[in-house]
């Protein structure tokens, strides 16, 4: 027999490819239905559950739940295959499907993230590499004739010079920092379908920016407004509500003040997303257009303004679209139904 080792690596690879294809199909489904609820907590692994595969045969037995779909594709027996998909891989696949480009990061080289990796080995150190040490010791023992199985000698001497230690190497990576402002209009009722849509979008934006910058490097801040604007905790962002007058400009003004006063605008990447029904009064739209053009656009990487379930009186996006046509920074979108979610994401993050 010529084989040195019996392994199923190639078949395992084929199975993994099959799983990869299945995951891609699952993501396709998520995208088509606009269902982004699979995303869990920030940066957590995605648990994918799929029907177990078995080749269909003529057999006795109870009907399984899934019941042999597939024909020449693998069938299913009603069992489940459960596996974890790393968060980054999931986002990578999602970005690939949505054709989302990587976000441009600013602040490169100004702040460094330092880590240590064990890439080299040397004769001195703290952490002994047992495998390498043993290899060298064995080689030396063979050379010195102490280890010679043919003559019944099995001694392996460990000498100081055979020791190999893992040596840490300082690795510096540029550290990017990003701040994301989420603005919500609390003067309209955010519950039911509207709340779900908003949550889904915020969740995606959070995950997408976490994926691009690294979970630890992104700060998410939430602001709400009616006739006044103030900062809230994430949970409250969806809860607070007030029926009455509204003025969206003050929210944009507040986040600009926060960005300008609390962060170094040269090394921080700013993002802002506004969610509301788009019903604005007076010259609110004009003021928003003004602050966007004059103050926010020069500093922010991306600003998204989204009308969630707009009514016939919604005109914020309409008004702003006159000033920001195909703008690289300012993105405008409307969501009428769940399936618009993906289009909204594309509008927010795709290249113009």
């Amino acid at each position, binding site marked *: *027999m010529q*084989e*040195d*080792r*019996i*392994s*199923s690596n*190639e*078949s*395992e*690879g*084929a*199975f*993994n490819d*099959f799983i990869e294809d299945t995951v891609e199909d699952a993501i396709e489904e998520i995208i088509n239905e606009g269902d982004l609820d699979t995303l869990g907590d920030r940066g957590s692994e995605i648990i994918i559950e799929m029907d177990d*595969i078995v*080749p*269909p*045969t*003529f*057999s*006795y*037995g*109870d*009907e*399984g739940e899934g*019941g*042999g*779909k*597939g*024909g*020449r*594709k*693998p*069938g299913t027996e009603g069992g489940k295959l459960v596996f974890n998909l790393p968060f980054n891989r999931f986002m990578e696949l999602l970005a690939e499907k949505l054709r989302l480009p990587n976000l441009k990061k600013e602040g490169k080289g100004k702040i460094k993230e330092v880590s240590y990796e064990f890439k080299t080995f040397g004769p001195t150190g703290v952490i002994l590499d047992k495998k390498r040490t043993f290899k060298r010791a064995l080689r030396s023992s063979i050379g010195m004739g102490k280890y010679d*199985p043919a003559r019944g000698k099995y001694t392996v001497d460990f000498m100081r010079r055979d020791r190999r230690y893992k040596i840490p190497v300082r690795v510096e990576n540029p550290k990017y920092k990003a701040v994301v402002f989420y603005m919500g209009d609390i003067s309209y009722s955010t519950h039911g379908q509207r709340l779900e849509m908003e949550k889904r979008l915020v969740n995606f934006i959070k995950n997408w920016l976490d994926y691009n910058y690294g979970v630890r490097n992104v700060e998410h801040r939430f602001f709400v407004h009616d006739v006044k604007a103030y900062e809230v905790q994430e949970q409250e962002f969806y809860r607070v509500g007030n029926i009455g007058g509204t003025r969206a400009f003050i929210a944009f003004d507040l986040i600009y003040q926060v960005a300008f006063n609390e962060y170094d605008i040269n090394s921080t990447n700013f993002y802002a997303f506004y969610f509301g029904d788009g019903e604005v009064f007076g010259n609110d739209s004009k003021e928003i257009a003004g602050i966007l053009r004059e103050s926010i656009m020069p500093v922010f990487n991306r600003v998204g303004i989204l009308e969630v379930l707009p009514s016939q009186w919604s005109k914020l996006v309409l008004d702003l679209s006159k000033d920001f046509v195909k703008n690289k920074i300012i993105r405008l979108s409307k969501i009428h139904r769940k399936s618009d979610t993906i289009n909204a994401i594309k509008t927010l993050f795709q290249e113009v």
Partner: protein
Amino acid sequence: MRLISTDKTLSHLEKRVLHYAEEMGRTLPEIRFFILDGIEFASLLEKHVYPTSPVNIWEGKRMVTKKFRIESGQESSLYYEVVQTGNPSYAYLNNTNSPMIQATVMAHVVGHCEFSELNVLQDSNPDRTEYVMYLVKKVNAGQHQMGEKHYLTYWNACESVIPLIAPHSQYNLEHSVEGDLPPQPEKIVPKVEEETSREFFRPFSHTMDSLLKYQDSENAWEIDRQKRDRREQISRTGYRLYRPCQDILGFLRTFSPTSAAEKAILDYMYVSHSKHDFVVRTQIMNEGWAMYWEKKIMLELFKEKAVNGIIDYAKIFSGVCAPRPFFMRNPYHLGYHLWNHIEELYRTGKVTLDYIEEKDVEAREKWDRKSDLDPLECMKHLVKTTTDYEFLRRFLTEELVFEFHLNRIFKKQAEMYGISKDAVVKEDNYFIWLDPKMVKDEMLSFFTHFNKPRIYIVDTEFIDGGLLLYHRNDGRALRKSWIEPTLKNINFIWKSAASLVSGNKLYTYSNRKFEEKEIAETSFEEVLERMDSNKKPFTL
């Protein structure tokens, strides 16, 4: 993977085991031992005990699952013995086992290899492992011709037909199809002692034959037509199905229209899986035979102190040979004890007409008449002439069913299975004992269906030159949702319509459409009768 010669201790043990096997007069092929690590062992098992296999997702899935189970401690990577019989036979040892266990494995393998050489089903053939490795190379070469997608699709379709292999069925390819059958792999035919046969002179005369033979002139044209039909079909298709064929993968492999690459896949699947049919028909005899010789050889090894740890061996042996109820049958236990019982029967002359005809109970009990026959030679003769069915039918008596605890079930288990009180012949606080006759009948009935649906090809020109399969009804319905995908796969391999008759339903998959029709229920005997009289088994 490394050769046993790289390990001095094991190499020595191998020599001692083979020495005793030879001394005990065993008929052995060349046995090559290899040492594997745990993952290699797991991988070997997933490749059906061949060192290589073509790429396929099923093996991948099983290995991924197995690795996860081993790594998470849910499964041990220790396996007792793995051998691929044939000449040469390949036996694999796990590098984590102690020398005593390795010796046990080697001694056990000796039993399996001899059984494979001698048995009536002629399991052993030359270069089996090498042939499979050659087929793997052919499949791998074919994969490039087919393209990855078509290759995987074809492979997946073939997976559906794997359970439909029956090379040893009475309705196998050899006994169902006439025409251009491919040459069968070379068999190692055991040397059976020639019986002195007497020559008879038979009267022979063409003239007398034609005068005496009854000629039905009314049917003469019908007989002539059938002969012409038969000749015509064989010359047109190369084969003629004259009886139901249960070896469906064998049939597809031989007669389905395939490219060279597709044929290589079917060949590999058939050759690498056909051994299961032999195993299922002879498992009790085979494992019992291996345990019997394992123990004999091991006792010699302990005597000469080639290995230590006889107490540990006794523990392992009794663990392997622990009794189980008949439905969870333990072939090691049942086979080993039956062989010992048979040896005793021959030794005391109880396999004789005198003993069978003896009416006096006391005389029967005290029966001990030495016979001229060597018990071991008689046992060898049994291996050469019987399979599990006949083995159990002849030797498993009702007393032995009790003695081997085959009919003993835990009370709680019996309640769980809903066993009726009529079937119980004895009980105590913990166990119940079932009627031994019923147990034996149940054990024998396993060999008619092997707990699998019996499916046959009964027509090769049914709808648009399509295959017609017949499910022999045994009171259990097929899993309905799997009929369509399975027929779809057969349709893909046969490249024409595929139909199945099950009960009073006709299922057809043709031209990407699946249809279900009601038809009159027909028994297997009727199908046989129709085919015997050269009629179509089913017409629409």
